């Protein structure tokens, strides 16, 4: 089948502002949108620029707006997108070139929540014990691949400086890990002006997550945890 890709283009070396360009490609209905982009780049216009690596939804490189929604281009099939597919870079970040955005602010927010296990007690000779029930409490938020689909879908993030959903997901992953000992330090970060309270439970993040993480729910759990710890 034929599909038309309407792609936002921007080359920092030659353009002053973004514009759209259309490409028509021959694809199988079951091809990924990434396959269609590759068709363009490989055989029509090598200047088209986007990130990609694993091509099956686990590395998080090819997050972009596809028909207005934040998706991984490798996890959307062309048959589900209609005959004309509009592809744009994620919102809320500086565009470096075409579909490539500057994710450094995103990773800076991620780093700010102390996304690592903190436990200074001397470890046992073998593994620390954790029951399956304790493990289950943070299972959902371990799935995060830091693709930025959620954070870039958040209207609050577009206009205000705040942690954004992905950083909170990664804070949740440690806040609810029975082995972690830094609850108070984590809460101090999350309870700041730019912390969890900026969330207005819009649920865009949950809809955007290609890993099916219940992002808004995780943010709500963090809010409740903060309140519970303060009592």
């Amino acid at each position, binding site marked *: 089948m034929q599909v038309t890709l309407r792609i936002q283009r921007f*080359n*920092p*070396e*030659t353009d002053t502002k973004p514009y759209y360009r259309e490409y028509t490609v021959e694809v199988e209905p*079951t091809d*990924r949108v990434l396959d269609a982009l590759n068709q363009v*780049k*490989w*055989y029509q*216009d*090598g*200047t088209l*620029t*986007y*990130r*990609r*690596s*694993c*091509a*099956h*939804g*686990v*590395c*998080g*490189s090819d997050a972009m707006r596809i028909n207005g929604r934040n998706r991984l281009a490798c*996890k959307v*099939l062309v048959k589900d997108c209609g005959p004309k597919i509009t592809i744009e870079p994620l919102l809320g970040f500086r565009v*470096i*070139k075409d579909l*490539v955005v500057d*994710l450094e602010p995103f*990773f800076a927010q991620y*780093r700010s929540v*102390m*996304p*690592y*296990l903190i436990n200074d007690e001397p*470890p046992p*000779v*073998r*593994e*620390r*014990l*954790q*029951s*399956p029930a*304790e*493990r289950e409490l*943070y*299972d959902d938020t*371990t*799935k*995060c*691949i*830091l693709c930025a689909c959620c954070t870039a879908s958040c209207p609050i993030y577009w206009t205000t400086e705040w942690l954004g959903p992905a950083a909170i997901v990664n804070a949740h992953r*440690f806040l609810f*890990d029975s*082995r*972690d000992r830094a609850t108070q330090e984590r809460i101090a970060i999350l309870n700041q002006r730019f912390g969890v309270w900026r969330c207005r439970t819009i649920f865009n993040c949950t809809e955007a997550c290609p890993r*099916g993480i219940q992002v808004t729910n995780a943010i709500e759990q963090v809010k409740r945890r903060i309140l519970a710890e303060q009592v």
Partner: protein
Amino acid sequence: MATYHRYDAIIVGAGGAGLMAAAQLAGKCNVAVISKLYPVRSHTGAAQGGIAAALGNLEEDHWIWHMFDTVKGGDYLVDQDAAEVLAREAIDAIIELEHWGFPFNRTPDGKIDQRRFGGHTKNFGEGPVRRSCYAADRTGHMILQTLYQHAIKHQVVFYDEYMMLDLLLTDDGVCTGIVAMDIETGEFHIFHAKAVLLATGGFGRVFKVTSNALSLTGDGCALVFRRGLPLEDMEFYQFHPTGIYKMGILLSEACRGEGGILRNGLGERFMERYAPTLLDLAPRDMVSRAIYTEIREGRGVEGKDYVYLDLTHLPATVIETKLPDITDFVRTYLGLDPIKDPIPIQPTAHYAMGGIPTDVDGRVTVDAQNTPVPGLYAAGECACVSVHGANRLGTNSLVDLVVFGRRAGKHMLQFVQENDFHPLPKEPDYRAKAEVAWILENDGDERVATIRAELQEAMMQDAGVFRTGEGLRHLQQKLAELRSRYTRIRIDDHGKAFNMDLVEAIELGFLLDCAEAIAISALARQESRGAHYREDFPQRDDVNWLKHTLVTRTSGGLELSYKPVVITRFEPKERKY
């Protein structure tokens, strides 16, 4: 002008091996990690099923059983001193990962849960054993995340989206650093270092159907090769039995570890004929050959070139909770539900057993005597220790990353503390600059993508699961043609900023280097062993071929030499399962 940087240690590649090494060096010396992707995009994150260690949490297990399985699984081409290190240190490494926060699945009493995996047995082959530690079917994702988290905690310096273009060696063979390009700006950076670790991953993209990411183009292997250092055992390339039909996306061996069955077009559990004891959990090379044999003999599904992976007899909760990502892949890409539908699969190019020769401390070596290159290290899939021999067991790749990434990091720390900087060669970036300039300015009539597609097709055809002398000679002719056409490429993007057209052209050069090394090594090896199966020499030949291949590029072309296999505990025997 290139920007100059100076670090005690430079690590190239931010997957499991690179980050594990970085963890040994962080805070103890001046270290930086360079990666052509953001670290969390590395392909370690795509590993699914598990990481083996004889913890014995669910049933009796011993490191020596793990070592034996590794040696036998590798069809006795494994260096047994290295396999012993792997099996012994796997236990410590897993516990260390747990202490760093790795979210393993747990047993009811809170220990690390373990499951069965192909080729892992109890008591030297008696039957399957629960040795694979795991986190659902996203074990690699969790390793990558845990190690990246650890690196952030210890403030490791990263150069994200920097691509290595050259490896710097002095005339007397001392490594002094690397040259890289900042992909975002196109600027050159010279990294002067006392020690360099290559942890650049595999080269699965030489094949058409592969589980490997688009970025796995053998950069580290190719640059070592270009600098006149040997590559080892390049003919041993693993095809994983269960890739999604046509797409190659990996469906973990954990599917079979949890009880999944392979069925041919007649519905038969055909592995009964090939491996009566381990059945569907036989080593990957045997299962991949069995699948192709079924297909060749007309028992593919509907006469086509695929068979089924059948999970439909498993409880839905097992599929949903222990194989959630795989379930998602099958639903997304095939529109099938693994709870109700058998899954069409075919073998997919997956893992390089060969690569840059190293000793057990990750030091790159150059000859049959294992003479090291001062300051140069390699670990992970790009390296060949050799713990995988002729065929890697499932779950042993993640073990390899953490065990030998750790050992390389520790040895590098000692090396940088005991040694000073060697002066850089004059104009250290001249080769890198010349290559980039050539590609940007070349005005030919060939497209990179066309040459790459023909390369991948030819490799699949003649260097895949079944090989012949005739096919490999044909492949060499094709590679020579592609090499010549590569000199006539023309790319569309001539800019500096985020030029992925340029990146892909450079990567194609790396792939051609790897393919040539594979072809000559495979043609020379006139026997069948592990993943290297020669239809014209179907038997293993220990008298003539129980040795590692070394291939080196010289001014006169590619040259082959060999080095002995280290045998300590287990004398080679026929491999039966």
